[in-house]
């Protein structure tokens, strides 16, 4: 029965995802005018302020804890909203870049590739940053240090370096005693 439920859940999620990618989620982008009309204006400086650590420390010291958490949650929600709009912009730009690549101009195609590349990079960054902000919204009072992706590699490299140094030191010791 458990296996049946797993299989049915997997199949249902496949159907839901197929619907998600098929439904028209974005406004149609056919040319530059469409982009100008449909893009979302998002202020980068305002976004920086929303996530600024100094600002957060100042608010923590100047507001009562409950008020601070309330305020912090609003700031995080706004930041998430901004990122959502930026993500939509990036998606529209990818579509625009794809349309530019269809033309015969190689310089424009290169420019379009760069645009798609930048927009995709932004979407990857959003994938990394959004879960953190959801956690921050859930726990507005806490500082959330998260484990690093690179840390295991750095630790591993440090470990091997220490082993190498130890072996060199052992070799030196052996040579001097002999």
């Amino acid at each position, binding site marked *: 029965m458990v296996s049946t439920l797993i*299989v*049915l859940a*997997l199949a249902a999620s496949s159907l839901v*995802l197929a619907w998600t990618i098929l439904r028209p989620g974005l406004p149609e982008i056919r040319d530059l005018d469409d982009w100008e009309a449909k893009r979302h204006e998002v202020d980068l400086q305002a976004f920086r302020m929303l996530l600024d650590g100094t600002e957060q420390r100042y608010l923590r010291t100047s507001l009562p804890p409950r008020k601070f958490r309330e305020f912090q949650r609003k700031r995080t929600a706004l930041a998430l909203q901004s990122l959502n709009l930026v993500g939509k912009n990036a*998606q529209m730009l990818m579509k625009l870049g794809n*349309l*530019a690549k269809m033309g015969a101009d190689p310089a424009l195609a290169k420019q379009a590739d760069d645009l798609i590349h930048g927009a995709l990079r*932004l979407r990857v960054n959003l994938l990394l940053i959004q879960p953190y902000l959801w956690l921050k919204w859930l726990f507005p009072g806490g500082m959330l240090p998260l484990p690093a992706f690179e840390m295991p590699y750095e630790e591993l490299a440090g470990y091997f370096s220490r082993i190498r140094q130890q072996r060199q030191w052992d070799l030196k010791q052996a040579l001097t005693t002999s």
Partner: protein
Amino acid sequence: MRPMRLSQLVSSILWLVPLSLQAAIALAILWRRLLRVFPIFFSYTVLVPVRDIILLLLPFPGNRYSFVFWWGDAVVILLSLAIIFEVLWHLFRPYPFLHFVFRLVGIVAVVVIVCTLTLLRTGPIGADRILESILLMERSARVLQVGLLVALMLLMSRLGLTWQHYSLGIAAGFGIYSALDLILLELRGHLHFVNYAAFAFLGSGAYNLAVLVWAFYFLKSGAGTPVRSLPSTELANWNAALTEHVDKWYRH
């Protein structure tokens, strides 16, 4: 007499529609010079109707019919698994920085699928053990396929790759067909809720749905008119700001 005729008519339509549409899709792939981009999907699109036509010419029931049917089915499932990797390759090859995400998702998908397949190791229990064994094997292959498709579609939706319309059509079509087929296999092979006639009829309907999705994406007129210039954007600044936060939060 009348319902019999109606069911025959519906079966014929369900058989003929994908046959003709897949021939048209194959021609569209050749016409739009997409053969190099999607060679495995093209092979699949050609193989399935050819197998159906061969089956029509063979006497049923018979050894040769069973041989072509089941071996054809195995090849079709293998090809449909390969198509998922073809789409993934097509989507991620141009972006080296995404290879890490691709590998990560691949590893997670494989681990999840292996766990699921381990849970699904149940032997046949009904009267027709050979048929049930085949259905259970097909179910395992479909679980693998649906698992990979879920990972693929999740990535497409999260990374906003839905403008890649041929890849989108292929993934969505397979996503719908594999999911419905898996549900039917579960209802037939494991829960014994549907008889063979209903299983064949609904399976054929699910395949028709997938072919309609592929046809929509491959047969509709071009993806749009090319634009002549691109806007200046703040993408670099946003990327710098977000990378700064990602560095601060994930790397310390």
